[in-house]
């Protein structure tokens, strides 16, 4: 009898402790915007210790979905919201606040880069993803099967990249061998492999993951760097956006965090993480 009462007390106690905490900002969405928000949230929490910021990733699609379902306060998105998504959530009035700019770069494994492939034009990349070019020897390198890495269909990075190389953000990429999610996963897979090509956000480049320059129609090779992105010369650029629902009254904590991100301190964080600040 004692143990029964103890058990009931503990279970009841656990249920009671599940109350919603007072000041929480819930954020979820694109893995590209994630590093900025994480760093900004850490800095912001030091200034405002009573506010907790919960951050999840999952992709731009998750960001849109969760705002539509009213599960989060801010959605992270690295592409434009689509008409279907707006129609899927009629009660939500989406507003995007841009906190930075980023480029999507085609990346190849180190071994491929060192063999001399440092630039490609968008058409060729498109052919690789369509499955028309299957082997690196077709591009003049040592014979090796191309490992084509794609991302999940709802990821902002993928939609922006596909729009640039295949003309349609929802295009089916038939020649794909591997589908990954987070920018992190793509980075790992490219670094692990010796024959891979994939798409990555510019800020996620590393010594083991090399970006290709893009050859445009005039034959000029455009490397992705801060200058070319700022001047708009690099063809695959997108904005880092934060979604809120303006149908609901804006939480003052959320507004204050958004203002922080757009302030000098917030934009310094954007610059530090190798993204492009808004005013540039």
């Amino acid at each position, binding site marked *: 009898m004692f143990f029964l009462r103890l058990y009931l007390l503990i279970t009841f106690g656990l249920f009671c402790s599940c109350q919603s905490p007072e000041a929480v900002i819930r954020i979820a969405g694109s893995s590209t915007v994630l590093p900025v928000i994480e760093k900004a949230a850490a800095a912001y929490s030091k200034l405002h210790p009573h506010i907790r910021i919960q951050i999840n990733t999952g992709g731009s699609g998750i960001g849109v979905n969760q705002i539509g379902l009213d599960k989060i306060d801010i959605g992270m998105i690295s592409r434009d919201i689509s008409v279907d998504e707006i129609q899927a959530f009629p009660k939500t009035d989406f507003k995007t606040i841009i906190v930075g700019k980023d480029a999507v770069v085609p990346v190849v494994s180190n071994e491929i880069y060192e063999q001399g492939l440092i630039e490609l034009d968008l058409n060729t990349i498109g052919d690789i993803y369509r499955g028309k070019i299957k082997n690196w020897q077709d591009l003049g390198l040592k014979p090796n*099967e191309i490992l084509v890495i794609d991302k999940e269909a709802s990821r902002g990075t993928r939609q922006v990249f596909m729009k640039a190389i295949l003309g349609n953000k929802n295009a089916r990429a038939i020649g794909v*061998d*591997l589908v990954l999610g987070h920018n992190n996963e793509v980075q790992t897979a490219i670094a692990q*492999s010796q024959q891979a090509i994939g798409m990555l956000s510019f800020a996620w480049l590393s010594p083991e993951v090399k970006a290709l320059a893009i050859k445009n129609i005039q034959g000029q090779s455009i490397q992705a760097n801060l200058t070319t992105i700022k001047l708009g010369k690099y063809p695959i650029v997108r904005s880092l956006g934060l979604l809120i629902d303006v149908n609901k009254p804006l939480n003052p904590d959320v507004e204050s965090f958004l203002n922080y991100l757009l302030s000098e301190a917030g934009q310094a964080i954007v610059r530090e993480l190798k993204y492009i600040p808004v005013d540039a």
Partner: protein
Amino acid sequence: MLKYNKELGLQHTLALSFFVIIALPVLIFFVLLIQSKRAFLEVGLGLLSTSWFPAGQEYGILAMLYGSAVVVILALAIAVPLSLLSALALTEFVPKSLQLTIKSILEILAGVPSIIYGLLGIVILCPWLEQVFDISTGRTLFAGGLLLALMILPMMISLFEDVFSQIPHEFRDNSSSLGLNKSQIILALILPISKYPCFNIILLAMSKALGETMAIMLVIGCVDKFPNFWLPLSAGQTVTSKLGRDLGNYSFHSIEFSVMIAMALILLIPTIIFSFVLKKRELVR
């Protein structure tokens, strides 16, 4: 009015628990059925295609079902003989002093979270497969099958060992006094007696393997296509991996969500069929 004593209280508590346990799976089944109604009515036979492309209104789930089937069959093919033989070795040949140590290690292995297996898969298993088979990526259905086999092994060995060790020693003594040697005892006595418990254990392992999400999601390659050549050595997709990666991207009442729930419902079917068949044969014998 009966006096409400401890006896009655216990009966009522047990009855309540019983009804909750029965109600839960039934409720789950009905919720899945209701959520997937839209998929079956609107997409219907379109589900039986190999092309998954929601942007083009194509909702073929065959690739995912095939992936789940291949991965589980592979896992069982590797794990069942291995675990049976290990359990037999553990009960019949390993000295008593080591038995407890080995059993404890198995229990620990069985408790390792599946994400750890997934990470080990990415870091160790997939690169190793790339080297051995000279393929461009190790993230394949084969890697998924191997990893699953690894995950269900400890649990299966532990359960088989429980079954075999519960056979009284007198039976073994009687058999050996009749002139049977060790392997004959195993084949003629131990395996036939424990036939139905063993099948139940295999069924349990199968349903555990069918439902494994986290580890499979990381090593399977997640390509929504029917694999072409060298079937297990190419990337594929399973039902659980698809649900794990993409379910959150679709809004609650959308058709894609409904098709995913339909996939989950179809995943339950093998387990239900096999358990009914097994129970019937067990009762009939």
